[in-house]
């Protein structure tokens, strides 16, 4: 019995689908129950949160959590399917401190809101950036420029005329 | 012959021109002008010597670092890059002199000179050789320690006037460090004074002439090994070099107190730093390593041999400082202060006590 099946057995309502991500057991979880499922997974020994990936599909947004257990050397993939226009899911920062930055990054680049995150701000792009670059509908044509404002914070504008930039 | 002034007069007399020159001034009663001229010549020679030494030291520093690190160092300008410091100087003069907009301009401009002048003044009672001394002050050692203690004022001014957090922190560190290290420095030096009974540097050097059993030179390092060690550590801290270069600590505070300086003012600090390095090494040699004492070579005037011995010893100490710099990382400021106050000062006091006891008991 692999980890996804174990999770399914423990939380039959939360896990809607189990499958494989290449060679790793994958459990698709209802988005309301993600926190419970993750807590259960942590209980089952999955102590490392390896990565959080957000993928923007045409009709949905998926968030994929890759977990690993140092103890049992097992992998587990949790997947949540979110609404495309208003992706929102519970934050896992209470379970894994390492989720902090990973969630901020996912928010920054894919635009998924993690409710309950202590400091959900952009991390790689400056505050005030328009759009989330890894969304498929991201506007690639508009150029955005970052300058340093009076108080030292980044200022984003679409007007690049006053920059010292040689064409 | 006790100092360079008399040396010059002696040379002029030997050449038979002194009386002639003196006659030129005597009728008008202006002998003091002649005196002044000679003193100015002396100081000019000293100044030129310091400048050349500093240039050589910067080249030497780079070469020693390069040798430790399996590199060549400067090779292009001049033979083996010997003219590199000149080019550096030319470059620095050509640089724009930037004063930060929110700096205190008067203090900002004043600070570099305040750093450089004490570094020069320290050389005055330093015996470069037999009678090669500008002035044999009777409080020579005290004078040196007092003048050295002026440097932190300049650093504090620079750090504060730059209106930059890094410079301020660098300045604060420098002052904290300097205060805690001048004390063991002075205490270590006092043990030597207890033997000589005089603060004059000439007396200290002459007390170290001669040998025991014809082999071991009578240097104070052999009587006072602990004092020497304390003085060495304190003087490296005093020079502000790795492992104690908190005023700069470039990887933490960018460049410490002179972060905002550029061009010639930066060069002033550079000059002061290396002049200080040489001066402190010279003082260390004077106090503990026998000054200009060395085997007398027949046929060569003592003035020359003594100068050579002094320079050899001083450069050995300078080399050690550079060598140490390339080997060890920087300490942390609080660790340094801990060592200064909790280990070095008690040790120095203990050393003082034991030395005093032994001298009174007549053992040494």
């Amino acid at each position, binding site marked *: 019995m692999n980890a996804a099946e174990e999770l399914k057995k423990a939380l039959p309502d939360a896990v809607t689908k189990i499958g494989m991500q290449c060679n790793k057991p994958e459990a698709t979880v209802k988005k309301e129950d993600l926190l419970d499922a993750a807590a259960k997974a942590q209980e089952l020994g999955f102590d490392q949160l390896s990565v959080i990936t957000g*993928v923007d599909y045409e009709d949905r947004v998926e968030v994929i959590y890759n977990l690993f257990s140092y103890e049992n050397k097992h992998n587990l993939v949790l997947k949540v399917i979110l609404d495309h226009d208003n992706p929102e899911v519970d934050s896992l920062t209470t379970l*894994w401190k390492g989720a902090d930055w990973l969630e901020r990054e996912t928010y920054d680049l894919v635009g998924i809101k993690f409710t309950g995150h202590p400091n959900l701000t952009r991390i790689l792009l400056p505050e005030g950036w328009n759009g989330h670059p890894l969304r498929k509908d991201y506007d690639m044509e508009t150029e955005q420029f970052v300058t340093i404002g009076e108080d030292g914070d980044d200022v984003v504008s679409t007007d690049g005329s006053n920059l010292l930039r040689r064409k | 012959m006790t100092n360079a002034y008399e040396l010059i007069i002696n040379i002029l007399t030997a050449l038979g021109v002194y009386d002639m020159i003196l006659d030129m001034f005597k009728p008008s009663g202006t002998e003091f002008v002649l005196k002044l001229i000679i003193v100015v010549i002396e100081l000019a020679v000293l100044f030129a010597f310091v400048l050349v030494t500093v240039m050589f030291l910067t080249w030497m520093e780079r070469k020693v670092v390069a040798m430790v690190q399996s590199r060549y160092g400067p090779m292009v300008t001049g033979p083996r890059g010997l003219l590199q410091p000149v080019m550096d100087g030319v470059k620095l003069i050509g640089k724009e002199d930037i004063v930060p907009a929110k700096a205190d301009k008067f203090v900002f401009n004043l600070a570099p000179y305040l750093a450089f002048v004490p570094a020069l003044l320290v050389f005055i009672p330093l015996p470069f050789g037999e009678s090669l001394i500008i002035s044999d002050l009777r409080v020579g050692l005290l004078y040196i320690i007092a003048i050295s203690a002026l440097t932190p004022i300049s650093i504090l001014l620079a750090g504060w006037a730059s209106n930059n957090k890094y410079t301020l922190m660098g300045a604060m560190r420098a002052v904290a460090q300097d205060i805690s290290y001048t004390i063991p420095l002075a205490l270590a030096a006092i043990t030597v004074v207890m033997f000589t009974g005089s603060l004059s540097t000439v007396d200290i050097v002459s007390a170290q002439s001669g040998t025991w059993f014809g082999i071991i030179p009578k240097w104070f390092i052999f009587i006072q090994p602990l004092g020497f060690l304390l003085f060495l550590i304190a003087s490296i801290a005093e020079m502000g070099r790795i492992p104690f270069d908190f005023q700069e600590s470039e990887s933490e505070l960018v460049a410490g107190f002179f972060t905002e300086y550029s061009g010639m003012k930066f060069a002033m600090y550079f000059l002061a730093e290396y002049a200080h390095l040489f001066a402190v090494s010279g003082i260390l040699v004077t106090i503990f390593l026998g000054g200009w004492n060395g085997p007398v070579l027949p046929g060569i005037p003592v003035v020359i041999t003594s100068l050579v011995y002094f320079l050899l010893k001083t450069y050995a100490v300078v080399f050690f400082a550079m060598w140490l710099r390339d080997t060890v990382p920087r300490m942390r400021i609080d*660790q340094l202060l801990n060592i200064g106050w909790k280990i070095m000062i008690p040790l120095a006091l203990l050393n003082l006590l034991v030395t005093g006891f032994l001298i009174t008991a007549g053992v040494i």
Partner: protein
Amino acid sequence: MQTDELLINMGPVHPSTHGVLRFKLRMDGEIIKDCQLVLGYLHRGTEKLGEMKTYQQVLPYTDRLDYISAFPNNYCYVKAIEELAGIEVPLRAEYIRVLVMELNRIVNHIVSIGSLLMDLGAATMIMWGFREREKALQLFEMLCGARMTFNYIKPGGVREDLPEGFIPKLNEFLEEMEMRIKDYEQLINSNEIFLMRMNGIGVISAKDAINHGLTGPTLRGSGVNHDLRKLEPYSIYHDLDFKACSRPEGDSYARYMVRIDEMWESLHILRQVVDTMPEAKVISTSKYGVAPMTGVPSTVSTYFPRIFTPPAGEVYTRIEAPKGELGFYIASDGSTKPYRVKIRSPSFCNLTALSGMVKGLKIPDLIAAFGTMDIVLGDVDR
């Protein structure tokens, strides 16, 4: 006495932030009250580029993530593709891959230790390190024509076979390296000032380290003896004899020592690889391979097709890069371009723990702890 908090902006241009990282420090005198990190000054959008280029074209971009050790980046991306498409790799190619990755691990640790010592004020180590690194880079140049951005490991194998004279030169390097590491150890390991600076600085417990998602030497410095080369052996690591190095203390010195120990282990691995390397071809000719063109004298053994369409699916692959766990997530929709490339970079995840580690310490400690995290900003910001 009334005191004010001091706000210090360390970076993005600062001698010891290893690039363009910015610390926002709230200080009480010299003591750090709060440390916030501002990233993104080197963000080049590699993940977005990954969606816009073909599978093959993304490969050179992976070199530019962690430019100190680019081979593991190459390899991890290639491994993800291979897992996705089920490409088999010839044994000799796997040997060469492990060889270059372990060589790169040594290079990475040299640079890491060197820059750590540089931050502490001892400039000698980095120069010695770069002296040896140069030898390794010359080996890389011999192998693939580039010194840092290799683009050498390809889906199904490697770009070219080992050149003539490579193995003797490598053996020479290994022998020299042994002596050099001894020199490093003599210079640093027992230096009292170094110990004073490193012992008990930036301590993180094993539990916290795992919870923060630390990986690599940073995790193993906390006494967690976990190494992906052991846990999920990939390539030929299951055939090799080596051990995962760890130290229980969890402080900066432990992390430093783990790196030194790993260099010895890598030397050990390299010797085994050289001794047991099989003679065979270096590129796969399995289902995605195409036959070499006849008639044209080809110097390059690239059989990987220009138009490559793996089956639709998702894959997440991770390897033990020198800096920690490096992962590539690739979602494919069956077209010539990846639908989504996600990079789990070790530097980014390791940095998470830094601000907690340095609270209550001083600026020099921040630099010491940060130096032992061993990050590269290209890897953090991607």
